[in-house]
């Protein structure tokens, strides 16, 4: 055995003490970086950074109220809000929410604050007064007067009291530098609970609350992570039934994990907890690799009776298939970074590096450990246990039956069935819609408290589904407030008029700072609606702007213009964020913007921000990168497989099942009414990366068996399936243990969806690897199968390493980890 692999193995084992020290030092070095690890969700980093809509959003993050908590107080017994009890609740809730840490006191608005005003014309001008005086209206007269005041305040009537008068809003913005999401979430939720009774329901929405939910559920994520990890360790212990066999995968996986976490700690790159399922997948993969490696070690040790020599041989034998297997896993992760989503890029770096770390730990460290650790006393039992009784026998019979369907006369039917399935799957998968809209947040379940609250608010008010058309000042000049100039007024009015007249999808409501100025103009001109329109002169618009802003804080308008009245937005509210709404809204906005032009002397019209635009950005990134990432991954694997088998045909054979798996998954999603989103792209890519292992190991085994079974395809396939096929099943089981609990345990839809889709693709991959790959081999009957020098082969003639025993070339037990 003079191949490079074995020479490396011999060298490492000859210096195993130094190698162990090297691993210990490197691990300590990475471990020192771990205190620098931060795990946090940066929501804006979940958006594709190169999308023009996302760029508008990042340039103008304030538009659309990202730091605002909105609470809807709803009277539930059929009465309206105009009664002392409900108004009293609104008053006191408004007072109490002001005690939430980090609140911007200037921004708190409800019908009980002085900021909600009505205006009356007086002989000299205008008297602007709070809707509510210094106490809650109590008598019938006071309540009637209060209702009259609300009706005289068009803004409040639209945005703070629902059309059916059963609900009202309290809005409070928070200061970014003081905002602690978990504190705000806890306090506001607690407050809402305190104010609920048999006649009142409170709904709490807003980005800080969504973040609070995600943070809260992330604590649950850590619990699930712990449970799943424990399950993996228990499964491992049950399978191995000895200390060394259990400890080795744990130490190797933990080392790779320390390296992965250490790297991101050193480079201070935050880890996105919403994607924590993938590290678990890596742990499962690492366990699986290690188990296969350890089993092989025991088999060799049973023959050689020398731990160090057995470790050296195992390393030499397993090096190529292990490295190939890990590389395909890692490529699946690394290619995710092609999508320009910062969280995914960071994640690909973190998990991709971690995956690559499985190579040194799963090939070299494991060998060193096994050479030092005491050999289990039940070594003979472990090696002999295989294939002969109980579950193993059952499994073997099932695999034999599967194998029999993939060659000979029965293969024709199998071919026909799979051809039909493939055609149907491909046809259906091309019909899948892009986008998976949920009213509210796609991170949470449809029936979650948050999304329920969003629906309730959307039902009563213009809602949260906005499209923001931003009018961006070319220069910031404190002597010229662009948002209060005739040019902006003209463009705002034109765009609003056009979209409101849209025949396909008129918005529910529109708002721009011009609306406030027109109202100011009317009031200061005596109250007659004929004074709503603004004269297109600097002085008239300036005056109207002053009428609005004097005596108020600019933060009261931060949803619609910046603090300095330079940039502003036109908000268009739509009924939902379904794809047809998104498409129609954007088309309508584009037509309007095209009509007014984007470039103006002092400002630029930019499309777009808001829920609708960001939803579209996520959809666009999926359609832009879905095929590209899969294509790149296919190409990379094609190169790797061609190199490993020295055959293009081999690469095609292993790639067909994994791609067919993807089509099958996509077709199933389409049938189930699930759209293609960024989750499914990740799953598809990870699925190809992990699934390709199955193909590589099975194909290698078939090749080996082809030679040893006298070039009989049927026997070769059967032998391969009943040995390597079993290992594939073991690997799939380990993966299921690692991933499936996420679907059942996670209240984060994002995570549960990932779990379910990953489980689905892994299972589909397993079935296709076991059936379609042998079928392809049978149909193609590739020439490379007869070669005996495949680098991925695991056979070794142990007699070369033995001094006495009778020669017995031992066939490798396959690895599929």
């Amino acid at each position: 055995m003079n191949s490079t692999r074995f020479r490396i193995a011999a060298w490492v084992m000859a210096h195993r003490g130094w190698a162990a020290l090297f691993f210990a030092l490197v691990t300590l070095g990475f471990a020192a970086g771990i205190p620098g690890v931060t795990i946090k969700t940066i929501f804006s980093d979940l958006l594709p950074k190169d999308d023009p809509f996302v760029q508008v959003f990042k340039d103008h993050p304030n538009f659309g109220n990202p730091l605002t908590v909105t609470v809807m107080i709803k009277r539930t017994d059929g009465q309206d809000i105009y009664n002392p009890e409900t108004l009293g609740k609104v008053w006191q809730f408004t007072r109490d929410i002001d005690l939430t840490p980090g609140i911007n006191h200037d921004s708190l608005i409800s019908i009980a604050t002085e900021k909600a005003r009505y205006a009356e014309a007086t002989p000299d001008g205008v008297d602007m007064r709070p809707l509510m005086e210094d106490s809650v209206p109590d008598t019938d007269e006071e309540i009637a007067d209060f209702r009259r005041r609300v009706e005289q305040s068009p803004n409040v009537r639209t945005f703070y009291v629902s059309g059916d008068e059963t609900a009202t809003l309290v809005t409070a913005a928070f200061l970014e530098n003081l905002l602690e999401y978990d504190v705000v979430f806890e306090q506001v939720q607690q407050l809402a609970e305190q104010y609920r009774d048999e006649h009142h329901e409170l709904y709490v929405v807003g980005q800080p609350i969504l973040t609070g939910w995600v943070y809260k559920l992330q604590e649950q994520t850590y619990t699930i992570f712990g449970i799943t990890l424990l399950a993996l360790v228990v499964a491992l212990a049950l399978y191995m039934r000895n200390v060394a066999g259990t400890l080795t995968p744990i130490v190797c996986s933990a080392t790779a994990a320390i390296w992965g976490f250490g790297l991101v700690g050193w480079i201070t790159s935050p880890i996105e907890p919403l994607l924590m399922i993938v590290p678990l997948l890596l742990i499962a993969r690492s366990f699986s690799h290690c188990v296969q490696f350890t089993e092989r070690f025991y088999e060799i040790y049973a023959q050689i009776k020398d731990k160090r020599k057995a470790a050296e041989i195992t390393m030499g034998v397993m090096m190529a298939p292990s490295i190939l297997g890990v590389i395909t896993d890692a490529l699946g992760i690394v290619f995710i970074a092609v999508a320009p989503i910062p969280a995914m890029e960071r994640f690909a770096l973190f998990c991709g590096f971690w995956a690559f770390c499985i190579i040194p730990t799963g090939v070299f460290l494991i060998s060193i450990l096994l050479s030092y650790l005491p050999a289990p006393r039940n070594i003979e039992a472990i090696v002999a246990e295989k294939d002969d009784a109980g579950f193993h026998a059952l499994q073997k019979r099932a695999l034999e039956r599967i194998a029999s369907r993939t060659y000979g006369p029965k293969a024709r039917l199998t071919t026909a069935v799979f051809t039909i399935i493939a055609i149907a799957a491909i046809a259906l998968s091309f019909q899948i819609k892009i986008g998976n809209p949920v009213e509210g947040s796609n991170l949470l379940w449809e029936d979650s408290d948050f999304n329920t609250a969003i629906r309730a608010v959307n039902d009563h008010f213009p809602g949260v589904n906005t499209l923001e058309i931003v009018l961006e000042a070319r220069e910031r000049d404190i002597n010229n407030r662009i948002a209060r100039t005739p040019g902006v007024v003209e463009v705002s009015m034109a765009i609003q008029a056009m979209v409101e007249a849209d025949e396909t999808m008129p918005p529910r409501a529109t708002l721009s700072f011009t609306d406030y100025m027109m109202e100011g103009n009317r009031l200061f001109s005596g109250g007659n609606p004929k004074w709503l329109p603004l004269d297109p002169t600097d002085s008239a618009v300036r005056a109207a702007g002053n009428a609005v802003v004097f005596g108020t804080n600019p933060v009261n308008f931060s949803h619609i213009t910046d603090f300095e009245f330079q940039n502003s937005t036109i908000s268009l509210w739509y009924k939902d964020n379904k794809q047809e709404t998104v498409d129609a809204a954007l088309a309508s906005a584009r037509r309007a913007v095209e009509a007014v032009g984007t470039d103006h002397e002092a400002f630029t019209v930019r499309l777009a921000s808001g829920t609708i635009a960001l939803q579209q950005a996520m959809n666009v990134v999926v359609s832009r990168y879905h095929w590209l990432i899969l294509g790149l991954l296919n190409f990379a694997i094609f190169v790797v497989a061609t190199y490993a088998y020295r055959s293009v045909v081999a690469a095609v054979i292993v790639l067909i099942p994994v791609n067919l798996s993807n089509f099958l998954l996509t077709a199933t999603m389409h049938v189930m009414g699930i759209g293609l989103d960024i989750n499914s792209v990740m799953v598809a890519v990870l699925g190809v990366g992990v699934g390709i292992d199955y193909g590589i190991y099975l194909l290698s085994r078939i090749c080996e068996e082809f030679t040893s079974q006298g070039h009989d395809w049927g026997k070769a396939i059967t032998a391969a399936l009943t040995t390597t096929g079993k290992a594939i099943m073991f690997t799939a089981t380990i993966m299921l243990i690692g991933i499936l609990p996420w679907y059942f345990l996670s209240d984060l839809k994002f995570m549960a969806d990932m779990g379910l889709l990953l489980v689905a693709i892994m299972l589909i991959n397993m079935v296709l690897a076991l059936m379609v790959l042998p079928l392809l081999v049978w149909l193609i009957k590739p020439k490379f199968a007869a070669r005996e020098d495949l680098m991925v082969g695991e056979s070794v003639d142990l007699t070369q390493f033995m001094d006495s025993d009778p020669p017995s070339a031992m066939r490798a037990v396959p690895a599929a980890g």
Partner: protein
Amino acid sequence: MHIRKYDFNYGRRQLMKNVAMGAGAGVLMPLSKLFAAEQSIAKAYPDELMSIEMYTKGKIKPGDFITAQNVDVVKELLDPIVYDQIKTMNRKIKIRATETDLTKMFPYEYYDATMRNLKNGLAGKFNADGNVVMPDGSNWAGGMPFPDPKTGDEVQANMAMSWGRGDYNQYAINDTVFNPDGSKGYSYDLVWAELQVQGRCDGKVFRDMKDLVRLQTVLFTATQDVAGSSFLSTWYYDQRKFPDLYGYLPQFRRVRQFPTNQRFEPLIPGVTWFLSDAWAAGDPMRTWGEYKILERKPMLGAFNSNWGGADSDNWVHNVHGGPTGETFFDVEYELAPEVVVLESKPVGYPRSPVGRRIAYCDVRNSLFCGCIRFDRQDKPWVNFEAGFGQYKAGDKEVKGPDGKNTAWSWTYVMSFDSQTRRMSRIAHQKECTGGYQSIFKQGEDEKMYSRFFTQQALQRLGQV
């Protein structure tokens, strides 16, 4: 050889004792006696309360700068928001020697009226409604009503009865607002005109308006978008009543009446301060309550601070610090031997976002060097730091209303929102846009009344 009669902490201990006993100012002897005798205040305090050098045991002396490096030495002597500015925003403050001459701490006319009352044995008192009156129950006739305030109410009344301590005050002002990143968000020029109707230094009642205490107008002259806009406040003598507040927008030729109880919003967009904050007494005294002296202590503040006239012809101080090096004026602080830490609460405003206010008042002249508005979570929100002093620097001097004595007034204000990190930096200038000048004059009240303090006046001003 200087013999120390008292141990180092004697002064501070005695101040604490004075609070507990409800005593007036002074440690070694009552400050009021020195006030009445027109003597140096040095006799009322031990050395370590009169000298920053002794107080810090030589670590800081007059002429030194307080910076991030040495601020911890004097942390307990500073407004906590100012401490934070020095520590984190690169602010620095020059220290000057403690002033001992009381005559330099007031406008001459106000000091004179106060001394006149003292000599005549006239001191203010509160009537049943809580308003300050003469011993015979008539409205207060001018000067400082409580030269030796012993209660929180008395300290507040000294600040509330006459803001600018002159019968007519006209200030040309620039208020520049700095964003958290140090960029300029707003820069307003305005004229602040203040006509004292009662409680005047001349002892008269203007136009026999016995139900009013003052008239006050703010006229904006820049930027262009607000030029000509103005506000007129009519203040009642009865401190339980809200002032009437009218706004005038010239383009509409209309007066807008603001809700009288709407005191917790900025008058104009962008600025950090509310009407409530100005003078640490921006609302009628009896619409607030629970005045309480929390502490008497020595403190560093812009008492008798440097005048901007030394730095520029328009009286604007040089600047430094903050993200762009422009956030803070170059001002000087001195050690005040005794400052009353006065707490008050907005009891008359059921919807106030403010929980309480702490004002730091120098007992030598009953004036604040700063006040902090706390939110209802009792977190510091906005401070309103003010410098007061004589308008004299080297050979440059501005004469006061009598044309003989040196003018005295506020010199600057810096109002910092420690939550949003915005700064309103306000300069008392010689002149602002529109040609309006700061005025220290007597005898032109009628002229100023018709120029600034009627609704017709507002309309005329808007045409300019």
